[in-house]
C-alpha cells in the first residue's frame, strides 16, 4: 500500500473517532455516562428501599446489592456525595432531598412500568421485574405522567407495592405477614415479595396474587394451609413470610365456584367475580360486556374445536376464548339447583 493510502486511512479513522455528536469518542462517552447513571440510580433505589424499611444502607449493603467491589463502591459513594445526592454518617447513608426525589422517580418508573406490562401487554408476573429493571432508567418524568394517566392512576404495582405519586408522596401498604394472620379469619392478599425469585414463582404458580381473598385453615409450626374458596394451598412458613395480607373487602369465593371455562353446556350459572389475575384492558372489556357479579350466564355454543365457546349473557351471545373464560368465576348450577330442590323438599 502506498503512503498516501495510509494517510487517508488514518485520516478516515481520526474523523470517525473525533466527529462531533456521532463520532466514536462521543458515542463511547455517552455510553459511559449512561452506565454511570444506571449505577447511580440503582444505588439510589437500594438506599431508599432500606430507608423505607427504617434502616440505613451501608457501603457493604450497597456493594452487595450492586455486586461491586469495595473500591468501586467507595468511588461511587464519593461521586454521589459530590453531586449532593447523599450524606454519609457513621451509621450509614441518608439521601438528601434531591437524592430522594430522584430515587422515587426511579421507583415510580419501575412500578408503573410493571403495572403497564402486566395490564396492557399481558406479560406473565414472573417476567415483569427483569423487564422493568431495564425500562426504569429510560423513562422521563413526562412519559411517566402520561403512562400514569393512561393506566388510570394505579395505586399499586402488580406485586402490591405502592406506586409513588408524581410529587413523590408514597402511601405505605398497611399489611401484616400471612403467618401472623389469625387462623379461620378471612384476608386479602395485598403484597407479594418478588425476591427471592424461586419463592415468588411458587406463589404465582399457585394462583395467589394481590387482590385474592383467602382464609387460613391451619397454622402449625411446620406449615400453613390456606384456601381461596375452592382450592387449598399448603405453604411453608418461608413462603408465607413473603405474602402480606390485610382486611378482606368482600367475602370469600363460595365453595364449589368454578371457572366459566369449565361450566358444562346447558346449565345456567351466576357470575361471582373476575379473577384478580384479570387486569387492565382485558378486565375492563369483560366488565363492559356486563359480566358483573350476579349476572346470569350460560353456555350458548360449544365449538367444533373446543375453543372459543359462546356464552349467553344479558340477552347477547358472546364468544370467549378458554383463557378469558378461565378468569371468570361462576357459581356452578348444581349447587343453586340443589338448594332449590332442598327448599322444595322442605316445603313438601
Amino acid at each position, binding site marked *: 500500500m502506498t503512503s498516501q493510502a495510509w494517510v487517508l486511512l488514518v485520516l478516515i479513522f481520526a474523523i470517525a473517532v473525533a466527529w462531533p455528536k456521532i463520532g466514536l469518542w462521543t458515542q463511547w462517552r455517552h455510553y459511559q455516562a449512561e452506565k454511570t447513571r444506571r449505577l447511580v440510580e440503582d444505588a439510589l433505589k437500594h438506599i431508599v428501599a432500606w430507608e423505607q424499611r427504617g434502616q440505613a444502607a451501608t457501603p457493604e449493603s450497597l456493594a452487595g446489592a450492586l455486586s461491586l467491589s469495595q473500591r468501586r463502591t467507595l468511588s461511587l459513594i464519593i461521586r454521589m456525595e459530590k453531586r449532593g445526592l447523599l450524606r454519609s454518617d457513621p451509621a450509614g447513608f441518608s439521601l438528601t432531598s434531591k437524592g430522594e426525589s430522584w430515587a422515587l422517580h426511579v421507583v415510580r418508573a419501575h412500578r408503573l412500568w410493571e403495572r403497564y406490562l402486566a395490564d396492557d401487554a*399481558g406479560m406473565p408476573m414472573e417476567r415483569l421485574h427483569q423487564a422493568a429493571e431495564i425500562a426504569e432508567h429510560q423513562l422521563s418524568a413526562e412519559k411517566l405522567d402520561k403512562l400514569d394517566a393512561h393506566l388510570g392512576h394505579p395505586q399499586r404495582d402488580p406485586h402490591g407495592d405502592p406506586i409513588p405519586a408524581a410529587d413523590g408522596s408514597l402511601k405505605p401498604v398497611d399489611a401484616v405477614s400471612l403467618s401472623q394472620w389469625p387462623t379461620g379469619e378471612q384476608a386479602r392478599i395485598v403484597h407479594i415479595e418478588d425476591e427471592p425469585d424461586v419463592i415468588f414463582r411458587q406463589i404465582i404458580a399457585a394462583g395467589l396474587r394481590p387482590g385474592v381473598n383467602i382464609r387460613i385453615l391451619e397454622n402449625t409450626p411446620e406449615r400453613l394451609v390456606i384456601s381461596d374458596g375452592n382450592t387449598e394451598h399448603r405453604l411453608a412458613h418461608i413462603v408465607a413470610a413473603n405474602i402480606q395480607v390485610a382486611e378482606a373487602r368482600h367475602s370469600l369465593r363460595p365453595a364449589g365456584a368454578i371457572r366459566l371455562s369449565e361450566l358444562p353446556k346447558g346449565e345456567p350459572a351466576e357470575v361471582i367475580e373476575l379473577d384478580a389475575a384479570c387486569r387492565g384492558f382485558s378486565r*375492563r*372489556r369483560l*366488565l*363492559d360486556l356486563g359480566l358483573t357479579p350476579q349476572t346470569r350466564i350460560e353456555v*350458548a355454543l360449544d*365449538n367444533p374445536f373446543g375453543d372459543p365457546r359462546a356464552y349467553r349473557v344479558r340477552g347477547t351471545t358472546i364468544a370467549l376464548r378458554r383463557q378469558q373464560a378461565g378468569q371468570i368465576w361462576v357459581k356452578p348450577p348444581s349447587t343453586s339447583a340443589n338448594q332449590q330442590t332442598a327448599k322444595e323438599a322442605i316445603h313438601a
Partner: protein
Amino acid sequence: MTTKVLDPREVLLRADHLRREMGDDFRDRIVSSLYADAQRIADRSVQIGTGQKWDWDQKIDRIVTSPVFGLPIMLGILALIFWITIIGANYPSQMLAEFFFVVEARAAELFIAWGVPALLTGFIWNGVFRGLAWVVSVMLPPMAIFFPMFTVLEDLGYLPRVAFNMDWLFRNAGAHGKQALTMAMGFGCNAAGITATRVIDSPRERLIAILTNNFVPCNGRFPTLIMLATIFVAAAFPPAFASLAAAGAVVGVVLIGVGFTLLSSWLLARTVLQGEASAFTLELPPYRRPSILRILYTSLIDRTIFVLWRAILTAAPAGAAIWVLANIDWNGVSLAQHSANFLQPLGYAIGLDGVILLAYVIAIPANEIVVPTMLMVYMGVSAMSDITSYDKIRTLLIDEQGWTMLTAVNLMLFSLLHNPCATTIITIWKETRSAKWTTIGALMPLVFAFAVTFAVATAVRALW
C-alpha cells in the same frame, strides 16, 4: 344563592387526593352499579317475549358451527359465491369490453378527422382510455355481483360465526380471531381489509392482521385467478362442470392463501411480534333479515364505486405508461420488449416469464391491469389488446406463447402471494405510521411469492 367558586387547581388537587383513597377496584364498582341500575330499569319497563327467535338462532348456530357441517358449509358458501360471480360476470364483461372497443374506435376516428396528431390520439385513446376500459369491463361486473352477495352474508350475521369457527386456527398462530373478519373484507379489497383491522384492540395482533391481509386475493386479483381457472382448469373438465371446476380451483387458491396467512402470522408472532394473546371477545349477533335497499347501497355505492374509482385513478396512468413503453422503440424493439427480455431469466427461474414479471411491475398501482398488460406485450401490438373471449386468450397463451400447467399454477400462486398494490401499501402506512412495518408489509409477501414459485418450478422441472 351564591355559588362558591373553587380554584381549579384546588379541585384538581382534591381529585388527586380522593383518587388515592378509592382503591384499585373502583372501576369494578362503577361498572357494576351502572349495570345494576340498567338492570333495574329494564326489569321495570321491558317485557321479554317467549324467545322463539332466539331458539331459531340457536338452531341455526348449532348447524353452522357444528363439528361436522361448520367448515363444509363455510367452504360451500365461498365456492357458491365464486361460482355465481364467474358465471354471472362473464357475459356482461364481454359486452362492456365490446362496447368500449366501439367507443374507442369511433373516438379515434373522430380525432383523426379533426386533425389531432396521431401520437396524441394514440396516447389518449389507445393508451389511457383503453386502460380504463379494461379495468372497468374486467372489474365492474364481478364486483357488482360479488359485493352484494358478500354484504348479504355480513348483514345476515354469518361472518362472526366464521370468525368463531376459525378462531382456533388463529389462536394457534398467535393471532386474533377477528382476523378472520378482516380477511373476509380483504376479498373485496385489501386496503379495506387493512382499515377494518381497527376492530382488533391489541396493537400486536392488529399488526399481524395488517401485515398478512395481502394473502387474501382481492377483487383486483380475482379476474386473473378466474381467467386462469377457466382456461387451464375448467378446460380439463366436461363443459357441464367447467364453471364448477373453475370455482373449485379459485376456492383452492383461497385456501392456500389462508394457509399462508396462518403461516406468516405464526412466524410473525414468534419473531418480531412476540407477546401474549390479548382479550378475545366476539359478539355473535342475532341473525337478521338483510335489508335489500341497504345492501344495494352499501355494496354498490360504498364498495363497488369506491374500489372502481380507485382502480380507475391508477389504471389511467398505468395505461399511459404501457402505451409509452410499447410505442417507444430502441434499436427497433419496443421498450416493453426490452424490459421483458431483461426480466426473462428471473421469470424463467420461478416458472413464469419476463413478460409476466413486467406486467407485475407496471401493475404495482393496481393489480387489475396485470392480464391486459401481459396480453398486450405478448401480442406485440402497440396498445392493450381487446381480446374479449377466453378462447382467443387460450390460443394466444398455450399455442403461441407456450404456457404450460406450470405457468398457470405459478402465476396463480404469484398473483396470490406477491406484494400488495400501491393503495394497500399506502393504507398500511396510514394505519401503522411506521416505515418499518410498511416495508415489511410490502416485502414479506414478495419474498414468499418468489420462494414458493421458485420451489414449485424447480420441483416440477426436476420431476418431469
